[in-house]
């Protein structure tokens, strides 16, 4: 069985959604506190979405300083940053580039069409600073079909295969349940599972 860890920072708000999604796939899921060093083994570690530290100073800026992030088992365990988690990973320089304000300067919350593994999928996006700039060597795994926020090359998600780190702005954990009318997020979680 897959063992997933979800790091919770002060202000994080998608940890329970992410846990619910992991549990839908039958994964054994637990929270990791921001001020604990990661010692245990996990198959995958999520940095979930939400406004860690209120996005004060800049999104992801303060979360990157926490013991949990500093002790991430880079290269050993698959690490997945979603939304604010992606911002934290770029701030920590674990992924290249940076996420700045959306082109229209506003928060954007909608169901976006995304290009993923050769098909178009529908997943919610909800962010204020999702405008991706300055890609490095990572593989692009998710692209906005219509450039929602001004990102270079319509980039919505990247994957550093060597270090096993994924970062994405869209929220696949919000598109799992039939009851909510969106299920394409399952494809992203299946991809994650295959990369473990």
């Amino acid at each position, binding site marked *: 069985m897959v063992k997933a860890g979800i790091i919770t920072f002060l202000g994080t708000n998608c940890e329970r959604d992410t846990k619910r999604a992991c549990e839908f796939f039958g994964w054994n899921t637990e929270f990791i506190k921001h001020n604990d060093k990661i010692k245990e083994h996990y198959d995958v570690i999520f940095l979930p979405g939400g406004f860690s530290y209120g996005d004060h*100073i800049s999104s992801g800026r303060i979360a990157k300083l926490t013991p949990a992030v500093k002790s991430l088992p880079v290269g050993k365990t698959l690490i997945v940053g979603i939304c604010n988690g992606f911002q934290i990973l*770029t701030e920590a320089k674990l992924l*290249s*580039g940076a996420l*700045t304000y*959306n*082109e229209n300067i506003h928060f954007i919350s909608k169901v976006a069409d995304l290009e993923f593994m050769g098909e178009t999928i529908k997943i919610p996006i909800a962010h204020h600073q999702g405008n991706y700039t*300055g890609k490095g060597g990572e593989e692009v795994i998710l692209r906005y079909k219509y450039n929602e926020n*001004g990102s270079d090359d319509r980039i919505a998600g990247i994957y550093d295969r060597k270090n096993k780190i994924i970062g994405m702005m869209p929220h696949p954990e919000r598109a799992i349940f039939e009851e909510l009318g969106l299920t394409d997020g399952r494809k992203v979680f299946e991809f994650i599972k295959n990369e473990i």
Partner: protein
Amino acid sequence: MKNYKATVNVKLKEAVKDIKAQTLEQAVHNIMPVQNLKCRVGNTYNIGFDAKNKKEAEKIINTICEEILSNSVIEEYEIKW
């Protein structure tokens, strides 16, 4: 121990697009005609604290700038005492 005060200015590097500045320029154009308008937006932090001496104070401020106030991928900073 002595009290030190520094002002840190953080701004986007020249090459990075400054969305807030673009929005500001648009907002200005919406209320009045201004020619050749060019804006840049940054953050300012006034920081006061105690340190043994100037050298220690500089070390503290540098750490704060590098670790918290700026992201070297897109931003640069300037310290004034």
